[in-house]
Structures are given as C-alpha cells and as structure tokens.
C-alpha cells in the first residue's frame, strides 16, 4: 500500500500540480464514497483552491503524504474486488437484466419462487414503513439511502437470486440500482407491492420501533443491551456511554456473539442502517429487536449520557 501511495504522490507532483490554478477538478466521487476517507461535499473545485485546502496536496514530503493518506482507511467492502473484476471482463447488457428482473409475481407465485430458488427477499421500502409489516425473513435496504453500497457490503454472493418488494412503481429503479454494483440476478418482484401480500392473508412480521424518548425511559428502568451500528469512526467521535459498537459493515463478524433469546436495542445515525441491521437479526432468528427511530440524531436531544472519547474495551477491533 505504501508503494502505491508513493506512486500517487509522484503522479500528483509531476502531472497534476504543475497545471494552472484555474483548471477545474472534476473527480469521479464525492462525499460518502468508500473510495476515499474525507471527501468534501462539493463535487468540483479549482485546482488552485484544492492546493490550498486538500490535505493530500498540502503534504510537504512524500513520507508525510504516505503517512496521512494511508492512515485510518477502513477495509474495503467485499464487493470492491468483484466489481473491479467485472469492469475488466465485461458484463451482461442491462436490457437482459431488466428482462429477467421485471417479472411481476402474485403473492402465491412470489412465495413459491422464494421457496424453490432460495432467493434473498429484498425490501427496498422506507425503513419505518418496513417496520410496520414485512414478509418474514426479508431484508430491508431502503432506496432512500446509500442503497447500492449497502447491498454490496452485505450480500456477499453477486450471483445470488433476488426477489424484490418495493413501493409500487419502484421495481425498475431497484433493479437498476442493484446492477450498478453488479447484482444482476433479480428474478422477480411482488406485483402490486406489500399490500397485495397482506390482502392475500399471508403471514407478516414486524419490528418494534420506538422514539428516542421511549428509549430513554427504557434505559432508566432496565439493564438493556444497545448496539450502535454506525461506522467505528462515527462511534469514536461521539456515542452513548452504555452502547456497544457493532458496525453494520461487519455484521457477519459479530453475528456469532448474538444471543437469539436476548433483547437488542439498535440505533445508527438517522434510522436507515439500524433497520437494515434489525431486519438481518430478525431473519436470523433473533426475535426481540427494537429499533430506535431517528438514530443518534434524535438520541442527542434526550438526557442520555453521551461521551466524546472512545472506550476501547467496548469498541470492536476492526
């Protein structure tokens, strides 16, 4: 990694920095991408301004550059190497992917297909809507968030057949956003959405979701187990004193320590990731999962004790 970082320093010094200050920089990514670690919200800038503010361009020596650039990088999500291989080798036309995936299924056909194929049931609706009622064993990854990166991080087999539950009219968008990260095996969707499933009298499941205020009361009355599923860096910067850091990114690593009989309160930053985690725990037989709606953003407005330093005994090593 240091070799490549050194190479990057040379590339920037020899090819980029000599360009005029008014040259505009148009990068391939902005804030939120796992391809870097501290990108700005802006999606373009002048090179001159970047020379003043970008820590990597400001580094005075190669050694300093290497140290700063390699420091604190999270391990890449599992799908990165697989997507890179697909980009080298070529993939199916998106038209073929749509043809296979835009397959409307009645509740009965949906259930039969699920049983026959062992497909993953992926529900792309809003987390709070999902919590009120969903098909047992389905996983919630909402379209209204960083959908594709979470699919990529959590579904390890890109060949996995997928059955979709979406808001009506969102089937194609769901398929498109799956293919963006190489998940080309959507084999159908629940025609008419989740309502049809309940209309048909099929079994449903729910996840209890509580407000931050109710969470505060629960903490006062009982000994509880609360999992903070945000990234390690988010947890380190600030967290509740009694929560355990269990990042969603590494759920497979900590799943083994979960007791199916216990009750778990789960929160993230805003309620998107906690529902993903809750749905995964549920699908693996953990019955008592309680989601804290609004996540840390809402928790901050309560009187719960917060800390602003890392607690190494509780923080998971990653």
């Amino acid at each position, binding site marked *: 990694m240091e070799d490549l970082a050194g190479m*990057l320093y040379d590339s920037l010094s020899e090819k980029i920095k000599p360009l005029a200050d008014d040259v505009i920089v148009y990068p*391939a990514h902005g804030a939120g991408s796992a391809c870097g670690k501290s990108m700005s919200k802006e999606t373009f800038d002048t090179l001159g301004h970047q020379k003043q503010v970008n820590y990597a361009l400001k580094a005075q020596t190669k050694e300093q550059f290497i140290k700063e650039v390699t420091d604190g990088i999270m391990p890449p999500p599992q799908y990165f190497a697989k997507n890179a291989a697909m980009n080298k080798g070529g993939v199916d036309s998106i038209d073929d992917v749509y043809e296979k995936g835009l397959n409307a299924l009645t509740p009965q056909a949906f259930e039969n297909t699920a049983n026959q194929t062992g497909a993953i049931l992926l529900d792309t609706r809003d987390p709070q809507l999902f919590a009120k009622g969903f098909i047992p064993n389905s996983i919630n990854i909402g379209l209204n968030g960083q959908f594709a990166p979470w699919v990529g991080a959590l579904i390890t087999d890109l060949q996995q057949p997928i059955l979709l539950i979406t808001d009506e009219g969102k089937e194609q968008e769901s398929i498109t956003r799956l293919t963006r990260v190489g998940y080309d095996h959507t084999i159908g969707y629940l025609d008419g959405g989740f309502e049809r499933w309940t209309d048909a009298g099929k079994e449903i499941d729910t996840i209890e979701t509580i407000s931050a205020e109710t969470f505060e009361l629960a903490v006062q009355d009982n000994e509880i187990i609360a999992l903070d599923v945000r990234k390690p860096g988010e947890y380190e910067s600030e967290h509740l004193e009694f929560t355990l850091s269990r990042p969603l990114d590494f759920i497979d690593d900590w799943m083994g320590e979960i007791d199916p009989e216990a009750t778990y309160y789960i929160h993230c930053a805003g309620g998107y990731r906690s529902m993903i985690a809750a749905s995964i725990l549920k699908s693996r037989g953990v019955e008592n999962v309680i989601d804290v709606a609004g996540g840390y953003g809402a928790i901050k407005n309560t009187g719960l004790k917060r800390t602003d330093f890392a607690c190494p005994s509780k923080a998971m090593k990653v």
Partner: protein
Amino acid sequence: MKIEQIYTGCLAEAAYYIESNGEAAIIDPLREVGTYLKKAEKAGATIKYIFETHFHADFVSGHVDLAEKSGAKIIYGPTAKTEFESHIAKDREQFKIGNLTITALHTPGHTLESTTYLLTDENGKDHCIFSGDTLFIGDVGRPDLAQKRKFNHGRFSRNALRFLE
C-alpha cells in the same frame, strides 16, 4: 463546448458528458447507459469516446454496453488490460472531441492504470481535468485496493468455480 457532471447520490459517483461540434464523449459511465445515449441524440451528437479513468471497484461501469450501442471507442490508460475491445492510451496521447482535445495523463497510485484526462478548450487553454479517483475534492483515492485485489482474487475464483459446479 459543453461539460456536464452527472452526479448519482446513491454511489456518490460523477460521470461526465462532454460535447463539441457534433461529437461527444462520456467519462466513467454508470451501468444504465440510456441517459447518455438520449443526451447525445437530443443534441444531434455522436458519442466518439468512452474514457475510463481506471477499473472502478465500487460500481460496475456501462462502458461495454455503451460502446455496443453507440459505436464509441473505449479508452483506458497505460498498463490496463481488458477482456473486451478497447484502446489503451499511451501517456500524453491526445484525442479530439470536436474542437476540444483530451490528453491522457497516466497518474498511477489509486490503482496502477489510473489516468487523469486533461481537457483543453478550442483556444488551446487547459480547462479542466477528469481526475477519477486520483484526486478528489478534499482527498485522494485510497491506495490500498490494487494490492488487496491480489488477495481477494483467489476468493473470487473459488466462488466462480463453485458457481460452475
């Protein structure tokens, strides 16, 4: 000269549409290529080149599909090896899009084949760079992926084998 950033929030990814004098180019297209084809068609422009800044790891690019549907040539930077038809640019090789010139600057680091494309306008002035994952706003691309790939490759092959069985 037209330069449009097409930003996709879900992936925090930016593709680019460049157009000049009836010719167009796409930088780092996403998988759903209809958007780019429609843009070019609406402007009456022919997509001549698809520039890839590197082998992306965080999304599957639509370069092959777009090349088939538009007839455009796929360009990668030095040292890239592809299993589909492509043109591997030499360092400082130039490409014409209408009155604009794109110069491929080999900038290895994020990955070995990473390349920055410098756009020079109709007056010969350097206008902008498409820096891929070499230079971000406020950051640079992580330098650990090209190395990790070696390790993960074995796992990927095993999965592929299992799938064949």
